[in-house]
């Protein structure tokens, strides 16, 4: 029982969110099904009056009949026309509402993703909540809205029918209410059981969906064709789909069997009402017309619990998602009130003062005890094994993360007090996985440009693109207006290497005092690598440049190399110094160099 209440509460919370942004639309959207349901009352009243008029005035002149009948005729016409209009309006408001609500909630989710501290965004817990909210804001939201409107309409329709039944005798109304309620509750419970066996909620079903989707992806099909494993996968999928379908349809069959009993209970109701009406005939309080419409209404009422059970069960199932969405969106975004100081000078030093970092909810530090000062004009290489914390270091340095211990000082100011937006304009970075944005080349490359004039300076852009080896792209048929990604029909999908070069061009166009490069050449081939290295070197003159790379060949030409191991900086010096030290760095370097040793051609050397 509490589950039902909880879910209903979640849905109401979600609706409250939507009402705040679109009050008039929401009220209209709720009013229309209400009226649509109640239209049955004037309709039935008019019909009754018309039947009675026809019988009572039988044989009299036309004019007399018309005079008696015209109010009901008008009511009938108005009610029918009203029903048609309301039906049309409902479909329109459903569409408008779904579009606006969906847009509003997606925007809220985006705001969360953008403003929440990066370390929280990257923690699996938070990200899981975000994904679930996101899933709810899609199909589930539209379905919730539609089901709510339907529930309102059907409830009012049932209420209207009860009113009509009461015109016969109050006992009929009472019985109709009771029978409908009982049948409804039974049906809802049954429907919920069926829906909980649905594909998206059971492991078998979800796995079946995953396999079906994989079997349409080119990379999967390519691999399976090579290994001749397609039939195996298809059987895996089909086995699960069949299990799921059989389970679900067994529930449907149960429903079918129960349907007969539900029908019977309405029949009992029907004849009980007839009996009551007949009983009243002696007192002449009911007319034939009443008898006719009561009969008709009860027949119609049979379909209502069925339809309501669909909407209510859907709302119950999706109430869980509604709560994911409502809770996430209502969660507070930190205001960063302490980050007040605007920043607009060049950065000379970045100092790490006993800095440690731990992800929210993690058991151990990723980095600890970092003490060093990085100065402008230095090229710093960060090396270490995967997982040693290199990317975390870069994020701390760029102000994307806040240290959990110690302080980071930018030109002597604690980074905690600085306004991040303004700080970022002094920074530039190229990350390993750059996003594939559906923008034109010009927009992509200048999105972060700090000089206002640069956005219209195509020559500058062309020059930088040339330097990064992208001249063929820049001189294509659309030039700088070439749309990127094939989400557009006329867009161009770039290779991994091209995306990375584009990201480097973007970083180059921004005039900043600090630049970070996190494995910028992982997707680029060797000759491209040299080109890019030279480009990055040119980029970094006069700036503080930090780059992260596996390939120790890059580190060799840096001013300073920091070797990270187990969350600590274990070695710090130039290439010559560290080779002389003959420790971790030296052995890794020699190992990588051995590939290119002139006369070593045997595999044993590996």
């Amino acid at each position, binding site marked *: 029982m509490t589950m039902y209440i909880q879910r209903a509460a979640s849905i109401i919370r979600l609706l409250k969110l939507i009402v705040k942004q679109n009050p008039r639309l929401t009220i209209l959207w709720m009013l229309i099904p209400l009226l649509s349901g109640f239209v049955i009352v004037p309709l039935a009243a008019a019909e009754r009056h018309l039947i009675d008029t026809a019988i009572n005035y*039988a044989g009299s002149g036309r004019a007399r009949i018309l005079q008696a009948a015209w109010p009901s005729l008008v009511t009938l016409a108005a009610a029918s026309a009203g029903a048609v209009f309301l039906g049309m309006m409902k479909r329109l408001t459903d569409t408008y509402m779904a579009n606006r609500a969906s847009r509003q909630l997606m925007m809220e989710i985006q705001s969360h993703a953008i403003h929440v501290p990066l370390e929280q965004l990257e923690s699996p817990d938070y990200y899981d909540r975000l994904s679930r909210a*996101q899933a709810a804001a899609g199909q589930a939201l539209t379905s919730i809205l539609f089901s709510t409107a339907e529930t309102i309409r059907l409830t009012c329709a049932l209420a209207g029918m009860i009113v009509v039944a009461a015109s016969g005798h109050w006992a009929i109304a009472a019985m109709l209410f009771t029978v409908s309620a009982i049948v409804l509750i039974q049906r809802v419970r049954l429907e919920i059981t069926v829906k909980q066996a649905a594909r998206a909620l059971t492991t078998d079903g979800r796995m079946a969906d995953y396999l079906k989707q994989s079997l349409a992806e080119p990379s999967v*099909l390519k691999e399976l064709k090579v290994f*001749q494993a397609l*039939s195996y996968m298809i059987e895996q999928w089909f086995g699960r789909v069949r299990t799921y379908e059989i389970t679900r349809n067994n529930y449907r069959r149960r*429903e079918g069997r129960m349907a007969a009993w539900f*029908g019977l209970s309405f029949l009992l109701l029907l004849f009980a009402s007839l009996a009551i009406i007949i009983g009243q005939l002696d007192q002449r309080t009911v007319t034939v017309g009443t008898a006719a419409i009561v009969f008709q209404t009860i027949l119609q009422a049979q379909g209502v619990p069925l339809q309501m059970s669909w909407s209510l069960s859907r709302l119950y199932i999706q109430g869980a998602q509604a709560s994911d969405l409502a809770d996430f969106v209502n969660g507070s975004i930190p205001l960063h009130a302490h980050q007040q100081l605007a920043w607009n000078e060049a950065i000379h030093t970045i100092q790490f003062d006993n800095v440690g970092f731990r992800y929210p909810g993690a058991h151990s530090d990723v980095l600890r005890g970092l003490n060093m000062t990085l100065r402008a004009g230095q090229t710093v290489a960060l090396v270490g094994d995967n997982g040693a914390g290199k990317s975390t270091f870069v994020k701390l340095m760029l102000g994307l993360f806040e240290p959990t211990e110690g302080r980071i000082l930018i030109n002597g100011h604690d980074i905690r007090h600085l306004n991040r*937006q303004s700080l970022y304009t002094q920074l530039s970075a190229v990350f390993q996985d750059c996003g594939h944005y559906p923008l034109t080349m010009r927009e992509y490359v200048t999105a972060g440009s700090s000089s206002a004039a640069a956005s219209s300076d195509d020559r500058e852009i062309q020059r930088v693109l040339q330097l990064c080896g992208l001249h063929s792209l820049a001189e294509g048929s659309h030039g700088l207006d070439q749309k990127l990604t094939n989400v557009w029909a006329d867009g161009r999908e770039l290779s991994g290497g091209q995306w990375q070069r584009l990201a480097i061009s973007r970083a180059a166009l921004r005039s900043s005092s600090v630049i970070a490069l996190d494995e910028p050449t992982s997707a680029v081939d060797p000759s491209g690598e040299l080109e890019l290295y030279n480009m990055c070197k040119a980029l970094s003159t006069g700036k503080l440049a930090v780059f992260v790379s596996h390939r120790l060949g890059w580190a060799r030409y840096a001013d300073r190399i920091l070797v990270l191991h187990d969350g600590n900086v274990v070695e710090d010096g130039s290439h010559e110094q560290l080779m002389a030290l003959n420790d971790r760095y030296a052995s890794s370097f020699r190992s990588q160099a051995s590939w290119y040793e002139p006369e070593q051609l045997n595999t044993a050397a590996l």
Partner: protein
Amino acid sequence: MQKASLDTVTMLMLPLRLYLIKLVMDRIQQWGQPTSDRESLFLACAGLALLMTAAAFIGSSSLLKHTRIYEIGTLLKERLIVEKTASLPLRAVETPSVQDVRRRALLYAPDAVCLEGMSLLIQSMQAILLTGLICWMGYWPLAVGLLLLGCGQSWLYAAIGSRLERTQTKQATSLRLADHLHQLLIAEVPAKEIRIFGLHSLLQQRWLDYSRDAGKQNEQAVARSERQKLLPELSFSLISGIAILLIILSSSTNISTAGDYVVLFQCVTLLAGAIPSVVKQVGSLSQMAVHCENFKAYIQHPDDRTTYNHNQQQRGNIPEQASGPIGLRTEQLTFRYNVSPTDRLAALDDISFEMERGTKIAIVGENGSGKSTLVKLLLGLYRPDAGEVHWLTKEGNVQAGHPTYRTAAVFQDFNRYQMRLRDNVAIGDVMKVTDDAAITEALAKAGLREWHTSLDDTIGTAFGRFDLSGGQWQKVAAARAYMRGDCFLVFDEPTSALDPQAEREAFADFLRAAEGQTAILVTHRLGAAKLADTILVLKDGRLVEQGTHAQLMTAHGEYERLYRLQAAWYV
């Protein structure tokens, strides 16, 4: 969606039901009069009750039949589409237009068509029956009017229905763009970039624009179709009103009983309800016809002949697998991707070479030189646009991709299947999915000697409790290829995410596992390439050099230039 559609029997019971209702109403009317016949009233009621009970039980059994139809229909369609996708040539599957056709084909629901069709038939027959009754009672102009209007409506609904379909296909681009942008804005990986470069306002603005655009198109389409439906629907309800007016007026001349009026009202109301619903069903059937067309279009797409036949066979009996290494020969191999006319780059142009059985081949070249494309052609995944690709076997020369000869590959975009560890590895040889020893051995060959789970654990975050690291996944993918000892092995740069040490180990494992076999290693780490027997150097889709490391170094060509470039970092 389950619809309580009328069964044939229920429909046939309709006249009887109406007759009994008439009787009941007549008796009620005569209640207070001396000629009243209470007994016959009770009899009529009883008869009616019996009839309706029967209808209830029949209705429930028809629901059971519907479920069965639904079950068969859905499974059949899904299976057809999945098998079709598997049998298409790889090139087709990679094309966005074919992917779109597949998406649209999925909308087809044969069970729904069947049920709607049945339902339509029965409802139409009921409409005819009611019309007949109304005419018999003497109001034939009414019936004719209602029918005519109904026909007009059905034609209109069909037109509106298919137009709405087409609009929805058109808004697809704005929706796709909005969706893509939204995913970027909420994803973890681009978040760093977005913050540093302040991209969020631009991206959000764009998303809003596309989203609004798609929404507006959708709303306009719905509004337009609703406007068009308004007049017919209104005129329909007005006609019902006029019908009732005529009935009332005629009571001045014909003296009928209450029962007659009630039945007449019932008939008119039922018919007024039946005709629009018949019309709507015709509309939805026309939409379904569009879906059926899409489905047929997809199913009729030409198959990939060689690999498909194999997969057909495998469901039946296990074909004889030839063993032994194969040689490779290409003659004037040319291949072009189907891109827009402005990008006229040939992916591969006029490539010819021949390799003996058992050779270890390295294919090197810069990004975009066509290495991966060549490999796919050699594996038989693509058919060349011109020229030939042959496998030289003991039994003679066959076309590349022939199902009797086994292949194995570790691609750059190898897949992480969210299934059991066992399944992930045994994809390399599905016959051995239950052979623990073979799977363990394959994992060992790939360098994974100990792991803290059993083979039956589901790996990956989607359905499992934990995920493997990038390096571990790469080893699982390699183990796939090492399951079978005797096949043509390909290693296409799967190591970009690994650090140099792990990369060296992966290459070593590969060369060890490829002992005695023909193997291809695609890489741009020339330090690894020099371990191969022969090196093929590709540049801009052409084969520019071929030979051993020593030969190519003395040739002072492209290879030597690239090698010196890489070595310069260390030497």
